[in-house]
């Protein structure tokens, strides 16, 4: 593959993310990887549901008292919006508009960073209340489930930051288009997982 081949919006293929065999392989492989990730999170969810509110005798924490929906609502909005901005970026990827794509991806990254910082605040708040990882089965399950999601967000941030800077000077080609596209798939996946965390952990924790 020639990395230096120049395109125009007219010559740019309709599906740049899977225009070559290598790209097709990455495209299919990444979808399959997300399938495996789904099972990974399903296992974490099942464990969380089994251990929810469960602790040593005299355990003083419950989901109703612990969680605060306003904060989680803001986090949810940040992450959902970041999924939307990554869609805008993919729109510009399709149209071979590199600058706008980079801009929307940067916005995506900032929204993701905002989400992550709020999550760090949330965790440190709970730890301040005495709800530490070692405190109970409930706390272990909670931090592992939500923390694994948070770790995925952090990995996504490092990934997109590297991509944005690495390609800043050389623009789009059929090699890095797949990388951008799989990042966007990954980001949507993280978003969908969060929708389930919001529902199963927070909403059902406070209301259910």
């Amino acid at each position, binding site marked *: 593959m020639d990395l230096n081949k120049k395109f125009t919006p007219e010559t740019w293929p309709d599906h740049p993310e899977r225009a070559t065999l290598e790209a097709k392989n990455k495209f299919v492989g990444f979808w399959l990887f997300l399938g495996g990730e789904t099972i990974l999170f399903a296992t974490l969810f099942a*464990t969380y549901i*089994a251990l929810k509110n469960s602790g040593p005798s005299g355990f003083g924490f419950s989901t109703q008292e612990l969680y605060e929906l306003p904060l989680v609502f803001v986090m949810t909005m940040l992450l959902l919006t970041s999924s939307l901005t990554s869609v805008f970026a993919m729109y510009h990827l399709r149209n071979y508009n590199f600058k706008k794509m980079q801009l929307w991806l940067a916005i995506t990254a900032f929204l993701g960073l905002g989400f992550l910082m709020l999550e760090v605040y949330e965790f440190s708040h709970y730890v301040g209340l005495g709800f530490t*990882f070692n405190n109970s089965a409930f706390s272990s399950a909670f931090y592992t489930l939500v923390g694994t999601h948070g770790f995925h967000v952090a990995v996504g941030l490092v990934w997109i930051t590297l991509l944005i800077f690495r390609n800043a000077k050389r623009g789009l080609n059929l090699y890095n288009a797949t990388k951008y596209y799989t990042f966007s798939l990954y980001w949507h996946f993280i978003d969908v997982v969060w929708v389930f965390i919001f529902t199963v952990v927070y909403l059902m924790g406070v209301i259910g």
Partner: protein
Amino acid sequence: MSSVAQKKGFGATLWDWLTTVDHKKIGILYFLGGGFFFVVGGIEAMLIRWQLHKPNNDFVSAGLFNDLITMHGTTMIFLAAMPILFGFMNAIVPLQIGARDVAFPFINSLGFWMFFFGGLFLNLSWFFQQVPDAGWTSYASLSIASEGHGVDFYAIGLQIAGGGTLMAGINFLVTIINMRAPGMTYMRMPLFTWTTFVASAMILFAFPPLTVGLFFLTFDRMFGGNFFDHTMGGNTIIWEHIFWIFGHPEVYILILPAFGIFSEIFSTFSRKRLFGYPSMVFATVLIGFLGFMVWAHHMFTVGLGPTANAIFAVATMAIAVPTGVKIFNWLLTMWGGSIRITTPMLYALGFIPSFVMGGVTGVMQGAAPLDYQLHDTYFIVAHFHYVIVGGVVLGILAATHYWWPKMFGTMLNEALGKVTFWFFFIGFHLTFLIQHWLGFWGMPRRVWTFMDGQGWNSANFISTIGAFLMAIGIIVLVYNVIVTSVKNVKVANDPWGDGRTLEWAIESPPIYYNFPATPLVRGLDTVWIEKMEGNETGLTPAEPIKDIHMPNGSIIPLLMSLGLFIAGFGAMYRTEESWGLPVLIFGLLWTFVAMAARSLQDDTGYYIKKDEILRDLKRKGGQK
């Protein structure tokens, strides 16, 4: 990356193997690595049998016995059977579908090195004298209570090796989906490719639960988590569920490729198309699907209740149906065929009665009320050794003889091969058949020793004799391999003379780009079709000879895996040694830097020029 054959020094050869991304070389690496661990696990088995050959034996201590059974099971499943099967998949599947490599050569190499370092990590526990001792299932209450770092070696070693397995699974899936040659439709794929496909899909969905379970275990043991500690609100049964949601599909991940191997062998040496090919494919997919529905039959005695037990009992017995379909198809493939009893065919013939016996005892245990009687007795030991040794290991030995010429370019000695078979086959039945009765007579699993006067003495002694016969069989095989390699008599494309699939239409071993021109596949058993029509090369090219795109070798996969290996030691000693945490961080950073290096470099591979391919063809021209 020159292809021209030239004398290379030891260092250059070593570097070549450490950095290779060629599926054939990675296949050989898997085969050698798995073979090494197979010998280690085998020695552990011999020590177990020697301890049990007479009552009140004190050959090993009770603690060492626990170490031995744990490491025997873990090593054989994760570090021997699976990697050897991966070796055959790597070496053969791309050839069978007419591809030049797998979809992700880099990740293929990474998968191997993670398996290797994970296995190394696990087995280094012997040198630290803190060996996993909670059984290969490491049930939570026991594994949490286990002192020392034994179970830590288990949790971290399997985590690293399991990551490699997951990558290998995704790699084979994409390879088979995207890289098939023109005309190779799904329903023309050889059965070994089909079973690899289904086994890889099962890996994709079975290994993430293992990953999570091992993380829970790691957190509980090393980082103060409380998943399984009931005094902190935890639940020890969660481990059992997670482990078997992984563990039951795992046995099908092992047996399906063996089914594929035998399908190839029956068809080849009966000189007949596989009987009922579509039903074989359907049965494979159905087994893969049902394999996920039956995990709780390992937990009948836990007390999940009669409803849950009944559902899982029925689902378990249902698996016998597609398996029966396969058995009958193999028998009918031989029916009316022109059969040649070669070494691989001997294994295939031995496999059918052995595996059927393992299957029948499986259905017996599937009946939940009876399982209450059989649970944790030697009957269970007999059963799973009948399916794993009688199915998977016979399959591995058959494939070793069958594909040896394709992988190494020489033929294993047939006479020695048959000697290996008879020693192994008789030894296997001698070892494990009697163990069914030992179970009925009440001998529990996992006991260090037993007392005199319970009627178990002679049965245990017979079992030990059988184990030694199996060991003799393996020693003959190793001797065979050495003699064959020293003589090094090169063979032609199709040394069995009856090859039906694409791997037999190219030289042994194949040139590093496999096919000078991508082949056109004209039906099931395409090479056989071509030969019947008088085309001696067995191939119709689908394209003119042109430049070939190839991947570059890389040392990064080895470095990434090494980082995880280092981090593992840091995690283990984090609480007791001051260097623990820094080493953990250093190892993880090492891996992340290696990943970033891979991401930032533009590795788009290289091209082999058309002239060079034509030159290779001309040089080979004389042999044909």
